[in-house]
C-alpha cells in the first residue's frame, strides 16, 4: 500500500461539539492503514489533551484517556501550537504526559507531544500529503 503523510488538525475543544471525539475515531481507524500520521492541536484544540479532564457534570463520555492509546498504534507525532497554549494561559505541564515506546531505542519511553511555534507547524503542514481539519 502507498504510504502518505496524513496530518489531523484538531482545532476545537473536547466538548461543546462532536468534532474532537469523531476526529479521534478517524485517527484510530487510520492507524490500521499504516500511514505516516501526525496530529496537530491548535486554537481551542489544545484543550483536547489537557490533563485531568472530567466530563461527569455534563453527562459526556470522557474520551481524553484514549489519547494514551495513540502511542500503542505508533502515532507519536503530536504537535501543539505554542501560541495557542499561551493565548489560553496554558503551558506544557498542563498537558497529558503522552508517551510512546521507541522501537529503535530499546523501547525507551519517550514523549509524543512537542510544543512548536505556528511557523514550525505550517512548515510541517506543507510537507504533508493529506491534511484533515476538524
Amino acid at each position: 500500500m502507498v504510504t502518505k503523510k496524513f496530518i489531523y488538525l484538531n482545532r476545537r475543544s473536547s466538548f461543546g461539539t462532536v468534532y474532537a471525539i469523531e476526529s479521534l475515531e478517524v485517527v484510530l481507524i487510520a492507524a490500521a492503514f499504516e500511514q505516516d500520521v501526525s496530529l496537530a492541536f491548535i486554537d481551542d484544540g489544545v484543550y483536547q489533551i489537557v490533563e485531568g479532564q472530567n466530563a461527569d457534570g455534563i453527562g459526556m463520555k470522557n474520551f481524553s484517556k484514549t489519547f494514551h492509546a495513540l502511542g500503542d498504534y505508533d502515532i507519536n507525532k503530536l504537535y501543539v501550537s505554542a501560541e495557542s497554549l499561551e493565548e489560553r494561559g496554558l503551558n506544557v505541564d498542563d498537558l497529558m504526559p503522552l508517551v510512546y515506546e521507541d522501537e529503535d531505542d530499546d523501547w525507551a519511553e519517550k514523549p509524543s507531544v512537542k510544543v512548536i511555534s505556528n511557523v514550525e507547524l505550517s512548515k510541517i503542514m506543507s510537507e504533508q500529503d493529506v491534511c484533515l481539519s476538524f
Partner: protein
Amino acid sequence: MKISIQINEGPYQHQASDTAYQFAKAAIEKGHEIFRVFFYHDGVNNASRFTLPPQDDRNVVNQWAELGIKNVDGEPELVVCIAAALRRGMLDKSEASKNGIDGNNIHPAFRISGLGQLIEAGIQSDRLVVFGD
C-alpha cells in the same frame, strides 16, 4: 486529477455541502474525476431521502444524487460514515433491519460505510478537500 471530498456539516444550516457540490460539479466539468465524497460529522444529514425543502429552494440531497458519483461497479461513491450516521438517526435498510427499526432514510444514491473509506480516499486520490468550519 483524482479528487476526493470530505463534508463535515449538515445541509441548510451551513454552506459546506453546497460549496462542495459546486466544487465537485466544476471539477467534473473540467475533466477531473471525483473518486469519492465522504460525509462525516453532521455531514451525514446530507444523505436523508426524506429531505423536502420548499419548492423555490435547492434540494441539497438531490443535487448530490444527480451528480451520479459511482465506482466502476456502479456502486455510489457518496459515502456516509456509519458511526456518525447511526448516532444521528441516519440508517440504511441493512442497519435498520439489524437493529429492528422499521424504516430507513439513506437516499439510494448514497451508501453507508466505515471511516476506512475516508482514509482510503486520502491514499488513492491526488487531493482530498475538506469542507466545513
